[in-house]
């Protein structure tokens, strides 16, 4: 009966209760949506960057991260690659040769990152291959053909079909020149990529750097779901012992992106924390007002023999009901909004005409939310738990009701 009394009590002031649960619901829904918005951006960012660069997991020479150089290669990767590609969580793997050099044309010369890629894999996985604005992307049969960034092309006055010379050091430190021709120009929106990167086939890169025919500087593992990174990393670690190869998470390969996400996520949670604080203030106000209004009623209940613990339990149950209704409403609103944006996305290109870059990586302006059960449960539990904690003050207040004073 105490639960029934608590349930009916919260509906005595129907308007106030409705305002309270709508506030909780709307606030929690907003918090869930914004967190899923942030998670969606991070997820897209990680996916795009990992696909464009060295994967969610990068296999490379253990010394490469300390001092990246083309002589720090990994080789004999066929067996390892075949095994990893057989795992259902893995989308694909790709071999990369990353080196530095100078690109020269009749118009001048600029520093460049020379990236040897497998065009068939790259065109399927990398956003860069889909951002060709002039000419076409590479294919496996290309020998001395390259694609260059739009800014690099502008600086060297390059067009499709024009020649350029790449000067670099091979694995033995010898200076080498290689003549090549522009097959395509890409524009990712990232100043760093567009002004610095030259992509060629991995065969071309091996030849320029005088590498063994099956060698690479990195093997990138691209996952279907980035959240499975830890598990796959551990599994790869299990098959690598004795091999001169190390497996690194993308966070170590791209620390600037990882740091950006960490800082942004932190500030996002602070913002959501403020929102939740405001929601909790509304709940607290309702609970306290509701108790203060019923002092005489509580005095009567105490007078006829109600144990103060029973009254405290009644207030606790009122908080439970308010919290549950509000949280259910919030979950419904937040999940519905997040699900809709997860399916359709929101295109921000109208507001962000110049595009979005993070740590030099261009990102899509169509944002898709990502609401995970973990976020849903955590945030709901925080709001619900805090509601129950807030009820301690009204509960304490009920225990202090002076029967004689209230009945006078």
């Amino acid at each position: 009966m105490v639960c029934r009394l608590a349930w009916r009590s919260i509906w005595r002031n129907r308007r106030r209760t409705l305002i309270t649960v709508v506030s909780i619901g709307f606030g929690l829904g907003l918090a869930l949506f914004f967190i899923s918005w942030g998670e969606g951006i991070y997820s897209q960012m990680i996916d795009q960057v990992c696909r464009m660069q060295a994967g969610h997991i990068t296999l490379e020479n253990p010394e490469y991260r300390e001092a990246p150089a083309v002589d720090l290669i990994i080789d004999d990767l066929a067996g390892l690659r075949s095994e990893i590609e057989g795992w259902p969580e893995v989308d694909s793997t790709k071999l990369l040769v990353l080196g530095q050099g100078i690109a020269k044309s009749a118009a001048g010369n600029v520093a460049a990152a020379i990236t040897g890629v497998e065009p068939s894999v790259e065109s399927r996985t990398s956003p860069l291959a889909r951002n060709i604005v002039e000419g076409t992307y590479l294919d496996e049969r290309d020998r001395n053909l390259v694609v260059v960034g739009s800014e690099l092309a502008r600086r060297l006055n390059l067009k499709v079909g024009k020649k350029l010379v790449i000067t670099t050091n091979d694995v033995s430190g010898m200076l080498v020149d290689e003549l090549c021709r522009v097959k395509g120009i890409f524009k990712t929106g990232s100043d760093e990529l567009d002004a610095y990167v030259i992509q060629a086939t991995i065969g071309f890169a091996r030849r320029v750097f005088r590498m063994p025919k099956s060698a690479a500087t990195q093997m990138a593992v691209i996952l279907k779901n980035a959240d499975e990174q830890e598990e796959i990393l551990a599994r790869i670690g299990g098959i690598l012992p004795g091999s001169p190869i190390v497996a690194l998470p993308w966070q170590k390969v791209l620390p600037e992106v990882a740091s950006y996400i960490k800082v942004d996520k932190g500030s996002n949670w602070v913002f959501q924390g403020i929102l939740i604080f405001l929601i909790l203030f509304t709940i607290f106000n309702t609970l306290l007002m509701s108790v203060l209004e019923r002092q005489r009623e509580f005095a009567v209940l105490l007078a006829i023999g109600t144990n103060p613990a029973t009254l405290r339990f009644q207030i606790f149950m009122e908080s439970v009901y308010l919290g549950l209704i509000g949280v259910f409403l919030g979950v419904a609103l937040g999940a519905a909004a997040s699900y809709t944006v997860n399916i359709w996305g929101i295109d921000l290109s109208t507001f962000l005409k110049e595009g979005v870059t993070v740590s030099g990586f261009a990102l899509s302006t169509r944002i898709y939310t990502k609401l995970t059960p973990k976020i849903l449960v955590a945030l709901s539990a925080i709001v619900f738990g805090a509601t129950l904690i807030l009820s301690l003050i009204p509960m304490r207040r009920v225990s202090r009701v002076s029967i004689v004073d209230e009945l006078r």
Partner: protein
Amino acid sequence: METIVRLENMTKDYGLNRVVTRALRGVDLTLESGEFTAMAGPSGSGKSTLLNIIGGLDRPTSGRVEVEGRDLGLLSSTELSRMRRDRIGFIFQSYSLIPVLTVLENAEYVLMLKGVPAARRAEIVRALLKEVGLEGMESRFPRELSGGQQQRVAIARAIAPEPALVLADEPTANVDSKTADSLLELMRQLNEEKGVTFLFSTHDPEVMRRARRLLLLKDGRISHNGGVGHTLDAD
């Protein structure tokens, strides 16, 4: 006859801003089981204070208060709460029903506190509501009842746990004279048929006339303790 209430040299002081007001001054009183006693006196004479102390809602400044032989001064607040629940019924001037509970739920509330099973509660309370003339109104809410009907629910709530004593603080003050008469008749009937001991305060001479014993309080002291007719006629 069993002694239900015994007060010995009981005083009650209220202090506010170092000014002490003596509400009760050395009250001695004994109530036996089955009594139907009215308590009258001018406002501020100490009627409500006396009821509160006998009911364990307030503690005396000095003196001894016993209910069914138990010294209330020695009971903890939890024991006092249990004593009120099990042995003392309360009827308040302004009915004081729980607005969100139905007639049946209001009347069975104390039985619920005592842990009486739901089916048994309903059985007891339905019979009681029939006795107090509220049969068929079990599922109504207090706002759907007249003042007199609400006070009948309060009476049913007070006697449902079969208390040793029912304390009523001006139970007829908020109803018209006809309703007051019927409520008094009901209380008297419950006193005679069920042996419920009643102690109620009142200002109404007509109500006092229905009592079998009258206590008159003046300046915190009992100035009359005895029969009704002669005293009222003398007034």
